[in-house]
C-alpha cells in the first residue's frame, strides 16, 4: 500500500505527458510539414491558423506536467533535468524559436519576413520532435546514475552504447527518428482535418506515405527496445494485462488509414497514447533506470516525495485538472471545423 500514492502520481504524470505529446504533437507535426505541404502564403497562413489558437494551451501541458513531476518526484526532476542539461537547454531554445515564429510571423506582411519565420518554425519543430524522441530513448535505455542519485551525460561520444555513453547513440537516434515520423504523420492528419483544397489533399498524401515509414519505425524500435532494456519484457511477462497498451497502439495504426479525417486523426492519437503507455508500463516501477548497477535506478519509491504532499496534492489537483479539461473542451469546440486563412 505504501506504493499507492507514488503509483497514482506516476500514472498522473504519464497521462499528462501523453496528453502533451498528443496535443502539442500535432503542432510540431504541422511545423515539420509546414514548408513542404503549404506552398503559397495563404496556405501557410492556413497551417498556422489551424494551430494558432491552441498551440499555447497545448504547450501548457508540458509545463503543468513538469510541475507535477517536480512535486511528486523531486529526486527524478533533479537528477533528470541536471543530467540531461545540454539537450534540455536546447529544447528550451527550440521551444522559444517555435513559439515566436508562430506568434510573430503574421505581424508583418513582407516577402522577407514571413518565409524566414516559416523556416524557423519548420526547423524548430523538426528538431523538437527528434529531441523529445531521443529523451524518451534515454529513459528506456538507462543512464549512468551515481551513488548520490545524479548523472551527467554529454550530448554524444561515439554513438555506441558502451561504457562512455552519450545522450545520442544509435538507439536514441532511432527513437528520435521514430518520434519525428510519428509527429509528422500526426501533424499531417491534423492539417488534413482542419484545412481544405489542395492543402488538404497534400496533407492526406503525406499522411498516406508517412504511414509506411511509421509502421517500419514501430517495428524496429520495438525489437531494439526489448533487447536493450530487459525490464520491459519482464513487465509484460509479469503483468500480461499490460498488452492492452500495445494493442491500443496497433489499433490506432490501423484506424489511421481511415478515409474519414477525424477517425484517422483519432487513430493517430490512440497510436501515440498506446506507444507511450506501453513504454511507461514497461518501465514501471522504475522512473529512471541505471545503465549499470540496477540498485542505483530511480524508482517510484526512492524518487517520490513523502506521503502528506502527495495526498494533499490530489485534493487540489483533481478539481484543478477537471477545470482545465473544461477550458480545453470550450476552446476546441469554439475552434471546431475547417479554418480559413
Amino acid at each position, binding site marked *: 500500500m505504501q506504493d499507492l500514492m507514488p503509483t497514482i502520481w506516476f500514472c498522473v504524470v504519464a497521462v499528462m505527458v501523453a496528453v502533451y505529446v498528443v496535443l502539442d504533437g500535432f503542432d510540431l507535426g504541422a511545423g515539420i510539414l509546414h514548408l513542404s505541404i503549404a506552398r503559397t502564403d495563404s496556405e501557410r497562413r492556413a497551417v498556422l491558423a489551424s494551430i494558432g489558437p491552441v498551440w499555447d494551451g497545448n504547450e501548457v501541458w508540458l509545463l503543468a506536467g513538469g510541475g507535477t513531476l517536480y512535486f511528486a518526484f523531486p529526486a527524478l526532476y533533479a537528477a*533528470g533535468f541536471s543530467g540531461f542539461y545540454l539537450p534540455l537547454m536546447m529544447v528550451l531554445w527550440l521551444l522559444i524559436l517555435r513559439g515566436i515564429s508562430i506568434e510573430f510571423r503574421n505581424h508583418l506582411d513582407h516577402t522577407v519576413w514571413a518565409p524566414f519565420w516559416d523556416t524557423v518554425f519548420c526547423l524548430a519543430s523538426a528538431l523538437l520532435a527528434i529531441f523529445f524522441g531521443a529523451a524518451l530513448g534515454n529513459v528506456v535505455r538507462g543512464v549512468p546514475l551515481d551513488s548520490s542519485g545524479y548523472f551527467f551525460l554529454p550530448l554524444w561520444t561515439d554513438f555506441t552504447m558502451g561504457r562512455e555513453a552519450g545522450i545520442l547513440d544509435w538507439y536514441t537516434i532511432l527513437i528520435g527518428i521514430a518520434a519525428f515520423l510519428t509527429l509528422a504523420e500526426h501533424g499531417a492528419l491534423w492539417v488534413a482535418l482542419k484545412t481544405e483544397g489542395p492543402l488538404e489533399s497534400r496533407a492526406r498524401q503525406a499522411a498516406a506515405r508517412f504511414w509506411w515509414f511509421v509502421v517500419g519505425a514501430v517495428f524496429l524500435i520495438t525489437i531494439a527496445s526489448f533487447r536493450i532494456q530487459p525490464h520491459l519484457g519482464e513487465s509484460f511477462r509479469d503483468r500480461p494485462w499490460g498488452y492492452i497498451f500495445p494493442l491500443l497502439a496497433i489499433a490506432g495504426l490501423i484506424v489511421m488509414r481511415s478515409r474519414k479525417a477525424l477517425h484517422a486523426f483519432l487513430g493517430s492519437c490512440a497510436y501515440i497514447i498506446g506507444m507511450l503507455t506501453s513504454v511507461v508500463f514497461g518501465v514501471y516501477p522504475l522512473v529512471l533506470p541505471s545503465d549499470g548497477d540496477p540498485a542505483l535506478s530511480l524508482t517510484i519509491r526512492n524518487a517520490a516525495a513523502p506521503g502528506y504532499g502527495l495526498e494533499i496534492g490530489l485534493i487540489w489537483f483533481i478539481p484543478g485538472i477537471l477545470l482545465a479539461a473544461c477550458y480545453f473542451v470550450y476552446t476546441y469546440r469554439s475552434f471546431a471545423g475547417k479554418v480559413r486563412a
Partner: protein
Amino acid sequence: MDALTVHRFHFAFTVTFHYLFPQLTMGLALLIVILKTIALRTGNEHYNKAARFWGKVLAINFAMGVVTGIPMEFQFGTNWARFSKAAGGVIGQTLAMEGVFSFFLESSFLGAFLWGEKRLGPKAHWLSAFLVFAGSWLSGFFIIATNAWMQYPSGYRLASNGEILLTNLWQLLLNRWIFWQYLHNMIGSVVTASFVMASIGAFYLLSRTHEAHGRTFVRIGVVAAFLGCCLMLFPTGDQQGKNIAYYQPPTLAGMEGLFHTQAGAPLAILGQPDLEAKKLDNPFTVPNALSFLTYRRWKAEVKGLTDFPRAWWPDNIPLLYYSYHIMVGLGTIFIAVMAVAAYLLWRGKLYGSRPMLWVLMLALPFPYIATTAGWMTAELGRQPWLIYGILRTAEGSSARVSAGNGLFTLIGFMGIYGVLAILFLFLVHREIEHGPEA
C-alpha cells in the same frame, strides 16, 4: 568563473529578462478590464478601441513572457538540482498549481479575448478579459508563494536525510510574508502598466496624433499610477520592510548600509558602503529615521551588520544596498511626479502642459528599473541562503553540471534573448505607430 557563479548568473539573467514582460501584462490585464468595464457600462466604442489596442500590446508581451517563462521552471531542475531534490516536495506544489490553475486559464481565454470579440459579444468578451486578468494574477500568486517560502519557510519539517517535507499546505499558501510580498509585487505591476499607458498617451498628445486616445491613456494611467505608487510605499512596502526587520535582520542591515548597532539609527539616503572599513562613505542621512520606520520609535535600537556572524551576511552587500536604494529612491520620485500630474489632471491642465507630458513620456523605463531593483533586493537580501536559514545557495546548485556547460547555455540564452529584445521593440514600436484607430 566557478560553477556556482555561473549557475547564479544564469538564473539571475534569465529571470530578470523574463520578468520585464509579466510585470507589464499582469498590470495591463487589470487596466484592460477597467477599459472594458467602462465600454460595457457606457456603450462607448472609444473604450473598446482602446482595449483592442492594449490587447495587441498585451499579446506581444504575453508571447515574450510565455517563451521566456518556460526556462524558469526548467532551471530549477537543470541548474539547481540539489535544491530541487531537497525542496521539490514543497515548492513543486506551488509550481504545479501555477500550471494547473493559472496557465490553462490564461492560455484558453487569451485567445478568446484577442480573436473572439465579434463571436462572443460584449459581455462574454468582458468575461474573457477578466479571466485573463484572473489567470495572470493567480500565476503571480503561485510564483510569489514559491519565493515567499524561500524567504520565510513555513509549513515544513526537516527529515534526517536533509529532505524538506511539507507538513501544512495552508501555511505554504497563506502566511504573513506572502500576503505583503504579493500585494507589493502586484501593485508594482500595476505601476509599471499605468506608467506605460500614461507614457504612450503623452507621446500621442505631444506628437498630436490619436489625441482622444492620448487623453484617455494619460488620464487612466496617471490616476492608476498615483494610487499604485502610494500603495507601494504604504502599507505594502512598509510592511514588507517590517517582515525583513523581524525575520531577516542581517538583510535589513545590509540594505540600509548599517554596520554598527545603534539606538536612533539614521536612514541613509546616499552613500557608498565600505566593507573593509565597515562604514558608509559620503553619508547623507536622516537622523533616527531608520529606527522610527522600523519600530515606530525614534530611539529604538537597530542591529548593525557587525552584530551578526559573517556567515549570515548577505554576500554582496554593496549591490544589495544600491538595489534597495534605487528602488526606494525611484519609488519616492514616482509619487512626487504622479502627484503633480494628478493635480494638473484635477485642475484640467494636464493635457496642455507640455513639460509634464514630456516627463510622463520619458518616465517609461523607470518603473521597470525600480521593479528589477526591488527583486534584486529580495534575492540578494536572502543570500547567502537559498532557503532562508535552511539551505545555503552554495549547497543548492547542480553538482554534476560544470561551469563550462553552464557558461555555454548562459551565452546561448544571452544571444537568443538579445534577438528577442530587438524583435520585441520593433513589433511594439509598430503597434504604437499604427495606434488605436488602426
